[in-house]
């Protein structure tokens, strides 16, 4: 209630923002419903990227541990650590640092706070384990994007039915249940279908038309963008289609039937 009160007050203070939200309510709602699965796909891809960063960080720590226990000579240690740093540099180029908490233009050793002498003395890299835990945690949450999207879909459907039941008559409320349930089922099915086909089409376009290399991670970016766009469009259209079908269902004496011709 306190939050609702705060929202109401801020809307009163800033009426233009409220008008924008109300004016774009349908757009906002459709984006929440059909865009969410695409967002889930993108966040999952980023989660895997963060997993890779966390794995490289763990490998760097293991190399230090092996040096400390005497399993690794100093020359081999330097060589292996250099290889891992090069891999990490590649993984953290440009915007790829987002979500890792590793910022700045300084060398990775400085950013990570790695000092061989300090490690050999203390047996741990200051704050290193915490950083790996944070990245893994971020990845775990991002990986849940699809489920959050689905929960939003269910929420939007529930809100639509509730709205019809509060403002309309009993018949409108009953009809809204079929229409909105149909929209939800069709929307989710369409989003997944559109996501699959959209990702495939955009990868082909990226390779054949835009000439994006097959060797890098360009195809992944294409798949995520194409999948999100395909999921949004197909989810929106198939949601309408299923809602139309849901609107044709009538309940007569407890039986579900299709609306008779001309009714």
């Amino acid at each position, binding site marked *: 209630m306190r939050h609702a009160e705060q929202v109401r007050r801020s809307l009163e203070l800033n009426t233009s923002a409220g008008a924008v939200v109300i004016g774009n309510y349908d757009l906002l709602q459709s984006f929440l419903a059909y865009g969410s699965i695409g967002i889930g796909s993108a966040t*999952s891809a980023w989660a895997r990227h963060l997993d890779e960063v966390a794995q490289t960080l763990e490998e760097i720590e293991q190399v230090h541990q092996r040096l400390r226990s005497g399993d690794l000579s100093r020359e081999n240690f330097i060589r292996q650590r250099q290889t891992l740093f090069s891999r990490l540099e590649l993984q953290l180029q440009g915007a790829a640092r987002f979500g890792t908490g590793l910022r700045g233009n300084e060398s990775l050793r400085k950013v990570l706070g790695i000092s061989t002498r300090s490690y050999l003395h203390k047996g741990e890299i200051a704050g290193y384990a915490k950083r790996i835990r944070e990245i893994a945690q971020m990845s775990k949450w991002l990986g849940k994007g699809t489920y959050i999207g689905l929960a939003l879909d269910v929420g939007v459907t529930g809100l639509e039915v509730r709205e019809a039941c509060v403002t309309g008559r009993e018949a409108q409320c009953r009809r809204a249940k079929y229409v909105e349930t149909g929209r939800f089922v069709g929307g989710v*099915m369409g989003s997944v279908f559109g996501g699959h*086909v959209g*990702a*495939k089409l955009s990868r*082909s376009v990226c*390779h054949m038309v835009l000439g994006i290399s097959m060797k890098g991670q360009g*195809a992944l970016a294409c798949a995520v963008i194409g999948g999100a766009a395909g999921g949004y469009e197909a989810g929106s*259209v198939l949601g309408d289609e299923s809602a139309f079908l849901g609107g044709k269902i009538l309940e007569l004496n407890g039986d579900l039937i299709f609306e008779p011709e001309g009714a």
Partner: protein
Amino acid sequence: MSFFLALIIVHLAGIFVLLSLMLFAEYAKLDELESYFDNNEKVRRHKRFWKKNSRIDRFHRMGLMIDILSMPKRFLKAGLVTEEELASVPPVLKRWALWPYRVSYIWIIATGAWYAWFKWWPEGT
């Protein structure tokens, strides 16, 4: 039942079947498909990146398989696969990977046509 309503039912049923086939291929055929590319660096790296067994991981791993099988000449030219690897994949498996997508293109066009009909000639529905 009107033609428009019948079209919707066929269209939605088709999408359900195609999506089921895609998901079935992702869950039941992917491992076998990947086994023919066990020594391939591109496939191994992709598998390492999408190492979890969740739906999204299998979707992206299947995506690479579909790309390799649908654009074999480009992958050969880029030096990412060998002719032996491509030849080792049985035609039945290739069909499982490729045909649901090929038929889907027809369904995507049908979706566009339905949308145009629904939006611009609503009185006909």
